[in-house]
Structures are given as structure tokens and as C-alpha cells.
């Protein structure tokens, strides 16, 4: 049997967003019920009976670079954490926020106090108790800038944490933060014990699985964690995760039955897997990509030149070569199509128009272009160099000559961090399905995930206001205004969402792929998955 599940762009619009809209706007405290939390073992589903051997074998795209608490160390790290650790909240099958270690929470009327109630008898895989003190210590660690947590500013906004008893945690915020539950559900912000990593370098947590063996450079073996709060619902006994850095190797291993599940399937391999029997290919829209600028000097310091570049690009061609058409071709702010904050007019504002681009170049003081730019990319990941070629030929149409500079990803990070580039194939960071995640695209230290020399003051005020405002028309207006400023300033040119995919044996049931910024949290659902005969 062959199946292709392509998630419709709007399918992911979750209960979570609406529930959180309520949470923020309500004048009464909102309580998240237990009812929404079942991630479902689908025992009555389409497949056969439960297989006797519940060992899932995974061909894993990378050996994680390490496990620094709260730090966004890439998709491999994040995926392992979804299995091994748990936060107070988690994501359900549709990407909505569901209870996890906390059975429920209440938000005060002014949105400044969050009271979480932990489940009884929580424990880490080591057997040590998990109490409100662990939550306090973890959240306080995440707030320290030097610790490098991705959501550091959100945790720094928590003015104080009270722990009146072992199962109650009260967060007192400095300012309201609408997206806080989504941030707490981010696997990076899971609760960790004092020694968050064991002597072997493997992460410890209170998740559905625990690492029982780590062969460096080879594999992880995970077993179901009997101390997990929902251990009865976990059907997989063991997960054998073998590192397979090469995408073709992963595909070969899946097709030959040596593994039952692979992650990070590049678009180039979709066709092979679509035609393979006994295999399901699950695709969804992934993270936004963007052409980043070094805005500090030269022609790129002139807004008209950046607008001209935006008009020169053929977004559909970029989507075609970068994702073989499985992604999207949206301009404007990097807000996913399935978000209520997506603005179609802004997303299509820079439809390719070579004449207009040439006019803008002339307005900016560069008639007929006549200058050259370097375009930094890497040869390590599919779609990067391919997009660079399209951009090069599009810009040459308007008289800008482009020299592509490629190397490994480490080279791109280093040059991106230090601003040693003119143009760069990149993309804004995003970890949650909320417009406040846009902050990372504009604000923060000089790192390769942001255009170098971006005028942060231009955006800071509105972003701050947006983060504080409850979902609704007022918040929509804030991000629309932000989008208008973006279209004038063009600090980077978004070209749309990438494509992401997992592939697995038809015998696996209950895996739910998430979409957009939270796509690499999809393995949360393996806690409720099972293998059939």
C-alpha cells in the first residue's frame, strides 16, 4: 500500500490558537481541560492488531551536537528532546497546546499571573521526584542570557516564580505575554533535573522515553520510561535510533526495511518514496526561507535597491527548485499561510516585475544596476545552492551581478554571524505558531539567522506591543502595520515556507506530523504511536 499524506496548508489551524485566544482575552481565568490532551493511540484505526514487538527503528538524520538546556541546537536535538523530555505543556496532534506535566493552568485577569498545577507523583527517568522546584530552577536558568536559550527574553519577562507547594508553580510576569503557553510547550523549554545531561552526554528528562544506550557516532537506544506520567498510554517499548547523515542512505534503509522511520527527507527523495510500497510519506510546510541582506553599507543600505531585488525575484521558481514545489511561494512577513495573521495582500506585494525593479534601482541611484554582490550559501543542505542559482539569474536580469560563495554550513554560520556577506540564503528563526515569533527575525544579537545591520528600532515597538496584546482584531492590526513597514524597509526578502517530510513504514500508526514552525516537534506524537502487524 502506498500513501501520500500531504497536509493542506490550512489543516493545521488548531484548537490551540483559538484556545489561547480565549486564554489571553478572557476576563475570567481559563482552565485547560484534560480532555484535549489525549494524543490518541488510534487503537481502532485502519491497521491490523498491535504487533508483538514494539521496537521502532529510526534512521536519524544527524547525531545531535549536544544538549544545552533551552538552546536551539537544530532539528536533531529538538526531535530527541520531544521523546526524552517533557515540559509543563506540549503540542497535540493538530499543533494545539495540550497539558503535559501540568494538568491545568490558570491565567489571571490582567494576564500577568500564570498558575500551573503539576500532576501528582511526577518523576524524572532517573527516578528522582519532579517538583515545582525543578520548574522554578529550569525557568530561571532559561532566563540567563549567557545560557543561550532560544526563548531567553520570554523567560526573562518572568519577574518571579513562586512555589507555594510541590505541585503548584506561579509565574509572575513583568508584562503580559500572549504566546507564553506556546513557548512553554516548545520542547526546548522542557523541565530538566539539576544534572540535565548524564555523564555520557545524553539528555535526561521526564518524557515518555529514556536513553538507555548511547553509542557515540552510531546510535541511541531508547526505552519507554516507566516513570512517565502517562506511561500506560505509551505503546512503543523501544526505539532504536541509528545516525544516518546521508539522505540517500536513510531512504535506502527505509525502503529495504532496515529501519521503519526516517526524518528530514529532502524533497529530492519524495518521488522515490511516493512510489515505494509499504511506505508512507508525510509532507508538510516547514520553516520560512529568506534572502538576507547585509544592510550596513553599499547599494544594499538603500531601501529602493532592496525593494528592487524583492521585485526581481521569481518566488515560484525558487519554490520549485528549493522544494520541488512542495513548499509555498509567499513574500511579506514570514507568517505561515494557515495563521490568522497571514496577510495575502502583503504576501503577494512583491510579485515579480522586472520593469518596476529597474525603476526602483534608478530611484535608488543605481540606474541599470552595474554593481556586484556576493551570495553566501552552503552545499550541505538540499535546496540552498539551487535557490542561489535562481536568485543569481533573476538579479542579473536587472543588472546586478552575483557571485555565489558556497562551503559547508559551519562556514555559512561563521560568515553570517560576522556579516561577511552581501546576500545570504537563510531564513528567520521561528519555533512557535504565533506572530510574536517574528521578533526573532528582527530583534536580537548579530547572528546568521537575521539580516546583518537590520534597523531594530524600526520594529521593536510594534513587536513588543504585539507580544503583549491578546489575539483579536487589535493584534491583527499591529502585525498588519508591521508588515507595511517591512514592505517599505525590506530588511530581507521572504520567499515562502520550505517543505518538510517524514517517511515511515505503513505499520506505524499514530504518528502525527505538525506543520510550520513547530514541524520539528512532530515526534511528540510517538508517545502515542504503535506498530501493527
Amino acid at each position: 500500500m502506498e500513501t501520500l499524506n500531504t497536509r493542506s496548508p490550512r489543516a493545521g489551524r488548531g484548537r490551540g490558537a483559538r484556545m489561547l485566544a480565549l486564554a489571553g482575552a478572557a476576563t475570567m481565568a481559563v482552565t485547560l481541560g484534560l480532555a484535549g490532551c489525549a494524543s490518541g493511540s488510534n487503537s481502532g484505526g485502519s491497521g491490523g492488531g498491535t504487533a508483538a514487538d514494539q521496537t521502532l527503528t529510526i534512521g536519524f538524520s544527524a547525531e545531535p551536537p549536544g544538549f544545552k538546556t533551552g538552546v536551539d541546537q537544530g532539528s536533531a536535538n529538538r526531535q530527541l528532546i520531544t521523546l526524552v523530555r517533557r515540559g509543563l505543556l506540549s503540542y497535540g496532534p493538530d499543533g494545539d497546546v495540550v497539558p503535559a506535566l501540568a494538568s491545568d493552568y490558570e491565567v489571571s485577569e490582567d494576564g500577568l499571573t500564570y498558575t500551573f498545577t503539576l500532576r501528582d507523583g511526577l518523576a524524572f527517568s532517573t527516578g528522582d521526584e519532579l517538583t515545582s522546584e525543578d520548574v522554578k530552577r529550569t525557568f530561571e536558568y532559561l532566563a540567563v542570557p549567557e545560557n543561550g536559550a532560544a526563548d531567553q527574553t520570554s523567560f526573562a519577562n518572568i519577574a518571579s516564580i513562586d512555589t507555594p507547594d510541590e505541585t503548584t508553580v506561579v509565574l509572575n510576569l513583568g508584562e503580559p505575554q500572549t504566546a507564553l503557553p506556546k513557548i512553554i510547550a516548545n520542547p526546548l523549554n522542557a523541565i530538566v533535573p539539576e544534572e540535565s545531561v548524564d555523564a555520557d552526554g545524553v539528555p535526561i528528562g521526564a518524557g515518555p522515553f529514556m536513553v538507555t544506550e548511547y553509542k557515540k557516532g552510531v546510535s541511541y537506544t531508547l526505552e519507554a520510561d516507566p516513570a512517565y506520567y502517562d506511561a500506560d498510554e505509551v505503546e512503543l517499548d523501544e526505539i532504536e535510533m541509528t545516525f544516518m547523515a546521508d539522505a540517500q542512505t536513510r531512504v535506502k534503509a527505509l525502503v529495504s526495511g532496515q529501519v521503519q522511520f526516517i526524518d528530514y527527507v529532502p524533497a529530492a527523495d519524495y518521488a522515490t518514496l511516493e512510489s515505494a510500497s509499504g511506505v508512507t510519506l508525510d509532507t508538510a510546510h516547514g520553516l520560512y526561507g529568506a534572502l538576507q541582506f547585509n544592510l550596513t553599507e553599499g547599494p544594499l543600505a538603500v531601501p529602493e535597491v532592496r525593494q528592487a531585488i524583492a521585485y526581481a525575484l521569481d518566488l515560484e521558481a525558487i519554490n520549485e527548485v528549493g522544494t520541488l514545489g512542495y513548499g509555498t511561494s509567499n513574500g511579506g512577513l514570514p507568517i505561515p499561510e494557515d495563521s490568522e495573521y497571514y496577510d495575502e495582500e502583503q504576501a503577494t506585494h512583491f510579485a515579480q516585475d522586472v520593469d518596476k525593479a529597474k525603476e526602483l534601482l534608478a530611484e535608488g541611484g543605481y540606474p541599470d544596476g552595474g554593481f556586484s554582490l556576493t551570495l553566501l550559501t552552503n552545499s550541505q543542505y538540499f535546496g540552498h545552492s539551487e535557490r542561489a542559482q535562481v536568485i543569481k539569474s533573476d538579479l542579473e536580469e536587472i543588472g546586478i551581478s552575483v557571485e555565489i560563495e558556497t562551503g559547508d554550513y559551519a562556514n555559512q554560520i561563521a560568515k553570517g554571524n560576522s556579516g561577511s556577506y552581501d546576500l545570504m540564503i537563510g531564513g528567520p528563526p521561528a519555533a512557535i505558531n504565533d506572530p510574536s515569533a517574528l521578533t526573532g527575525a528582527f530583534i536580537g544579537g548579530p547572528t546568521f539567522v537575521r539580516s546583518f545591520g537590520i534597523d531594530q528600532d524600526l520594529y521593536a515597538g510594534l513587536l513588543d506591543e504585539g507580544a503583549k496584546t491578546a489575539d483579536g482584531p487589535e493584534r491583527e492590526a499591529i502585525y498588519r502595520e508591521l508588515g507595511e513597514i517591512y514592505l517599505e524597509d525590506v530588511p530581507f526578502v521572504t520567499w515562502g515556507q520550505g517543505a518538510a517530510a517524514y517517511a515511515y513504514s505503513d505499520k506505524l500508526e499514530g504518528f502525527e506530523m505538525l506543520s510550520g514552525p513547530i514541524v520539528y516537534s512532530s515526534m511528540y506524537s510517538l508517545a502515542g504511536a504503535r506498530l501493527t502487524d
Partner: protein
Amino acid sequence: MIRYILLRLGLGVVTVWGVVTAVFLALHAVPGGPASIILQGGAGGGDVNPAAVAALEKELGLDRPLLVQYVTYLGDLVRGDLGDSIKYSAPVTEIIASPLGNTVILVFLALVIGGVVGLSFGVLSGNRPGSILDRVLSGLISVAVSTPGFVIAIFLSLVIGLSLGWFPSLGYRDPADGFGPFLYHAFLPSLALSFGFLAIVGRVTRTSILSVRREDWVRTARGMGLSGGRVFRRHVFRNAMNPVVTVAGLQLGGLLGATVLIEQVFNWPGIGGTLLNAINGRDYPLVQGIVIVFAVVFILTNLLVDLLYRFLDPRVEA
């Protein structure tokens, strides 16, 4: 003799020092450092406070001047300490032990397969020059010598492994879980690795046998009425082996290098893959440690080949 060996070992130490220095400088000249890769390196990640990167660099001692780092490294090296891997926070010797073992076994199996098959091919065609068998074997050797190892690896993996299912198309079993399954998984990668070696051994053996067969002493031995088999064993084969041993010894370094690609195709956790990951992760001590191991293996093999050469042909002097 002892003096000769000591001299060669001394030269070897100088060579290793040169290699270490070159690799140290090259690694540090390449953009990108381990701290930013650990904190930002994975695809889809990377919004890290620059303060965190700076803090990690300080913790790893990477904020010190390059010369200080170099002298510290050399000092540790003299004491036999290869340092700690940055990614794994564990001694380099500990990290490379298992993958090195896995690669050595692949290389050893490839040497056995390539040696036995190559010698047989060379002997068979060298003794019957111009025959159909000679032409067929020489043809096969030409194919093996001109096809890149990774192409053969992909072919073997897809055809023998995936389509026919005779051997695993990729993967690895820990020798601790039984040597049988380990060898079963090691067979195809070592076979792929053996092709280039087999071809060189076969070709040199054939040429060498052909030339020795024309020597005066072989004609004399035949004239004395010795049987064909005895002439071959005592007079042709042994004398023909000198160039084969030399070439085979030189190939060993090439075999180690060839494992990098072949391990990728078969997802074999060997030293080649470890080196590649260490370079991508800018794990300086790990890269340097592996390069030192490669250099030492190469130097010792060359020494061994030279010594073996003297044993095979007593006419060779120091």
C-alpha cells in the same frame, strides 16, 4: 639494522609534527568555530545570544591566542595526550577507538579479499600470457582499476544488498553482539573497498611474473629439469613478490582514505565518517587526533614494507 629503524622512526616523529602543525593551521584558517556549531549548527536552529557563544568559547579555551593553543596542544601530545573531543567532551583516544577498530577490520578484510583474488588473477594470467583466461582477467582488472570505489560501493549496495538481498545493503552490528552478524554486515563494504587494491595487486603481480619468467636463472632452472610447479614456486613467485609487496604497502594509505566514501554509502561507523563529522563540526582535537593516527599508520606501514623488502630480497641494503 636497529640504527636504520631508529632513524626511520625519528624521521617519522618529525613527519607527524609537520602534519599536526599543518592541520592545526589549516583548521584554524577555515571559517567557523566549534562553539557556534554546537550552539547554532543544526539545520533549523540557531537563534542564540552571541554572549552564549562567547561563553562557550571561553569555556573551551578557544579565546586564547592561537600560539598558546598550539603550544598547549603540542605539550599535551608529547605526554601522549590527544586532548578531549569538543563535541563529545571525552578523550579523543576513547572516541576514536571503536570507529578506528571498525575501519581497521574493513581494511583488513579488503586486504585479504583483494590480496587473495588479486594474486590469483595475477598468477593465472602471468603464467599464461596471451591466453583467453589472461585476456578475460586483465579485462576485469582494468574495469576494477578504472571504476571509482564509491561507484562500486553504490552498485554493490543496491544490487547485491537491496535487489538480491544476499547481504545487508547498509548498516552495522556491534562485534560485542556476535562476530557472525558483524562480518555479515562488513562483507559488502570490504568487498567494495577491495576492488581498487585487488586491481593493483593483480596487475603488478602479472607484470612482475612475466618479467621474472624471462630471467636467465629461470631458464637455467628449467634446463636442469625441475618441474614447472617447482620452478614457479621457488624461482619465479618469490622473486616476483618484491614489487607486489611495495605496491601493496603503498596502497594501504589509499585504502584508509577510500573508506571515507565507502563508509558513507554503507553507513558504516568507521573512522572516515568520524573524521568527516569532526571536520564539519570543527572539532579540532578530534580531527587532529585522527590525522595523527592516519599519519602514524602510514609511516609504520612504509617502514614495515621496507623491512619486508629486505627480508624478501637480501640484496637490498640499508
